[in-house]
């Protein structure tokens, strides 16, 4: 089995039990506030990190788990960000690397991107680790995200794994008949494999649709909502967004 459930099923903390809508609103709102903060206010980012660490602590997520998950995205951010200072040449030069100059303005841009990306990624990691996929999907649906989007994501999640398993089976079948992937010589074979995977997925789609229509599908899906947006949810959204907003306002005042 390829798939490991996004949220560990065994743990249940107040954060895990929150209605998904609260976590989506709270954490995405938090990211928006972080992104709009001017990079000069370094202290503000420290405070944001404290807020996020507090939520993660409530959810009993270990820093190691968070770091591991964040590692999936962070290297790409660093790879892009590291070149940014070389394209921002205004401001006072701090040091030069060969012929290229690095200025204080350039470093500020680097810091801006890194800090915001890191906080953003970590917020989404916290959301993902405390919410199951099915809760996320219903949460987004109940927040009135367009249904087409919600369903597309939900179907991708459901059938993505089947697709992977199917392509693995195909690879095994080819390997069993002594297929060795050599460069270029096997491009036609790989092309045919992709084509046949496409056809299989296409007919799968058709069968799923027939199974849906057979149960009275007429063009709209109502996912069954469970859980309510109660006081705990309001408290969570209020305190996360309230604190972040207070920090954000303070940066505007100090500037």
């Amino acid at each position, binding site marked *: *089995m390829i*798939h490991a*459930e996004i949220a560990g099923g065994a743990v249940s903390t107040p954060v895990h039990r929150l209605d998904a809508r609260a976590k989506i609103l709270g954490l995405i709102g938090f990211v928006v506030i972080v992104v709009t903060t001017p990079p000069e206010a370094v202290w503000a980012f420290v405070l944001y990190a404290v807020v996020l660490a507090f939520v993660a602590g409530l959810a009993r997520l270990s820093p190691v788990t968070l770091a591991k998950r964040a590692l999936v995205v962070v290297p790409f951010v660093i790879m892009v960000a590291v070149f940014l200072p070389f394209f921002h040449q205004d401001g006072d030069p701090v040091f030069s690397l060969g012929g290229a100059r690095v200025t204080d303005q350039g470093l500020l841009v680097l810091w801006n991107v890194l800090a915001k990306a890191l906080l953003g990624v970590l917020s989404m990691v916290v959301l993902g680790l405390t919410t*199951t*996929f*099915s809760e996320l*999907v219903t949460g987004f649906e109940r927040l009135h995200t367009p249904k087409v989007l919600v369903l597309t994501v*939900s*179907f991708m*999640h*459901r*059938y993505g*794994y*089947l697709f992977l398993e199917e392509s693995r089976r195909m690879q095994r079948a080819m390997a069993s008949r002594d297929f060795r992937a050599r460069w270029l010589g096997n491009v036609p074979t790989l092309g045919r494999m992709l084509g046949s995977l496409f056809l299989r997925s296409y007919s*799968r789609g058709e*069968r*799923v649709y*027939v*199974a*849906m*229509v*057979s*149960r*009275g*599908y*007429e063009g709209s*899906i*109502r*996912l*069954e*909502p469970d859980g309510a947006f109660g006081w705990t949810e309001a408290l969570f959204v209020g305190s996360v967004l309230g604190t972040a907003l207070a920090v954000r306002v303070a940066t505007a005042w100090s500037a």
Partner: protein
Amino acid sequence: MDDSAESAKAAGRAPTQGPPPALEIRGLVFAYPDGTRVLEGIDLVIRQGESVAVIGPNGAGKSTLLLHLNGILRGSGSVTVFGLPVEPKNLREVRRRVGVVFQDPEDQLFLTSVAQDVAFGPSNMGLDRDDIAERVAGALAAVGMEGSGERSSHHLSFGQKKRIAVATVLSMRPDVLVLDEPTSNLDPKSRRRLIDILSGLPVTKIVVTHDMTVAYELCERTVILDQGRIVADGLTE
């Protein structure tokens, strides 16, 4: 609900006395758009409460026939369900009354949790939340999968997926249960379990199968389909 009114109305329309048959097929012919003729004139009447096995070689037209029972495919000739002709204006009612369980449970379980999949049919019927919750619980209990509503179907064993697929249709409380190869790819134990569950369900059953044990234990009557025709129809022996 309005079942009694519905069947009384249907009975009034049927030419014969007594309750209308669960299924009545007259002169059904079907060809795919490329001209391949699959059904060459099927006549079949299935009474309410009967259990019928449909057997026949691959390509005999079994699955095609099955898709006519709830109006997914429409050939020439007539198909009536409880006196109700299978035609566009009746599709909603027909699909509620005829529950089809397809061969591959992966096609039937497409949502992110078991409960959502089982609730899919009832919510299309426009039922309210409490009613849906009650039906989901009832259907899961009927297939021995109580308490797995929050699981993701991806994590179930194949046998469990098959049983959940049956539950997704049971939650609509159909009068006819149509099963396409219910025991294919099941290990003996899961197969035994599924047969026991199915034989305990008090509905009309139409079972397309290659599994003679299923035909023998589940159905008193067997219909043999070959090259788009019914070539034999009688007691299962």
